[in-house]
């Protein structure tokens, strides 16, 4: 496998979330994509798909976006899972490694969801401890992503943005800033997404933000007749999220940006078209940065 062209970090361009149904097409046609991101858990037991990913990796910069470290678990992070991730990191040499500000393991059981944390000093200690353990084991920095939330804890004492900023400061991790999640969480809490985004951009040190995520979501009605947005990654990025993305780029600068699409997965060409929309906004942000520099 030639690594010479892909050893560089993930570029500040628009990448695509690669899912298993697209492997064969990507291998056969090598479609244009600035970089790709995968969930490493999909390759830990599936050696056939891992063999395919190794071939794909030869032609594309790759990011590993984990969903199973359970960085928020009070019981700590599973050493066996860290070892599995480390094996993939050593094999694939990804430009970025990330997971979520959430938990999914309790009482020895893994729950396949990104469950929310109460934002307390205790939780901050736990997550910082766990992130440090993972970074030490991997020998590199990881990024931690803000999740979508559907409930808030009365015990929370720290605003989410400040919590993640403090985590980055304490543990040395970077931030994966998911703009769609900001929108979903804000609207579910009946908050103004633009104001919430401003809070995020004020709280975060732009230098710690290593990646941005964009995705579509679903709008459902609760039994009480209220609207609720579900982060299902099953649709186009909505116009409101594109607007928040533009404001994010203006304040944080151009960042590697990933288009995620998981449910009702469309043809790869649809993802490329969505990517082009992000690329045009990234180009504007780049021009703005050059103009400032000049």
């Amino acid at each position, binding site marked *: 496998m030639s690594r010479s062209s892909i050893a560089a970090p993930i570029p500040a361009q628009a990448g695509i979330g690669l899912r298993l149904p697209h492997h064969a097409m990507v291998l056969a046609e090598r479609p244009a994509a600035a970089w790709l991101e995968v969930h490493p858990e999909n390759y830990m037991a599936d050696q056939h798909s891992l063999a395919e990913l190794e071939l794909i990796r030869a032609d594309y910069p790759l990011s590993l976006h984990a969903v199973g470290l359970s960085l928020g678990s009070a019981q700590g992070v599973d050493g066996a899972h860290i070892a599995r991730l480390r094996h993939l990191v050593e094999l694939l040499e990804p430009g970025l490694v990330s997971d979520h500000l959430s938990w*999914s393991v309790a009482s020895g059981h893994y729950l*396949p969801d990104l469950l929310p944390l109460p934002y307390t000093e205790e939780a901050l200690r736990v997550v910082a401890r*766990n992130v440090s353990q993972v970074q030490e084991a991997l020998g590199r920095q990881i990024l931690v992503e803000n999740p979508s939330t559907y409930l808030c804890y009365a015990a929370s004492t720290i605003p989410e943005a400040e919590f993640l900023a403090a985590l980055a400061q304490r543990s040395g991790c970077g931030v994966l800033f998911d703009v769609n999640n900001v929108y979903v969480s804000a609207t579910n809490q009946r908050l103004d997404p633009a104001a919430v985004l401003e809070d995020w951009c004020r709280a975060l040190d732009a230098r710690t933000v290593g990646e941005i995520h964009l995705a579509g979501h679903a709008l459902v009605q609760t039994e009480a007749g209220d609207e609720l947005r579900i982060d299902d990654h099953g649709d186009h990025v909505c116009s409101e999220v594109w607007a928040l993305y533009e404001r994010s780029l203006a304040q944080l600068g151009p960042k590697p940006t990933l288009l995620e699409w998981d449910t009702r997965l469309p043809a790869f060409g649809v993802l490329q078209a969505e990517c082009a929309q992000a690329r045009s906004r990234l180009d504007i942000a780049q021009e703005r940065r050059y103009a400032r520099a000049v």
Partner: protein
Amino acid sequence: MHAPSEHALESLQSGMAAALLAADPAGQALPEALFTGAHAGAVGLRVHRNTVLGALSNALRLSFTAVDRLVGEDFFDRMAIDYARARPPRAPQLDEYGVGFAAHINGFPGTESLPYLAELAQFEWQLAEAARARAAREAGPVLQLDDGVRLRFAAPLWLHAARYPVARLRDAILAEDTVTLAAIAAPGPADPAPTNPAPAGTAGFHYAIWRTSEGVNVRSLSARSAGFLAAVYAGATAIEALAASGDADSAQVLGEEILPAGFVQVELPPGA
């Protein structure tokens, strides 16, 4: 998990995990006072419960395609959720989560008319395992024959035995072949008929399942070929493997069933 636990957070997480997996969510409900915000905590918990159970059902559905098709989506979800509550996963690589599903649905209430369901699930699990394997023909066993001919066998390869004709059953389900399905459901008088089950407690149908870079392959075997292959993959010599096939005319095993199968390559000696 070796880190010292943080008490309040650990208590919250174990309580929420129990609430999300509970068969009776009302009985395991968390106090509303734990939550604040625009929606009741119960609303958010319902979203997470649906995500957790839905993800686990879908993980199983990917491996048990024909079982899902046979029983229907709603009934499959019932079995999957029952399995999730009885055996929640212990690791995030959900590819391995279905290992106990076939045993769990054996005798599942409502499946009395499908006596082959658990065997079908076990067969599909073997196919799923094969699909996740990396093809490595060079790692397969090699038999050296007397005349310098070498037989190179595929790797990885699994031998599978069942009382019911599970490969035929699976093909019929996926092709919506109702005639074959009806024949398997109601065995006819001809014995052995290709659709009749073997006597209880015996394996009447044998299969080789192997992985190549192109995909997963299945071939039906006679009991003698299955015995031969089991011996080959256990490291037996050609003579030992033929003896293990239990056939009076042992060469017939090679000539009729093994050599034409896709899982073996014949390598001739140099100059032949």
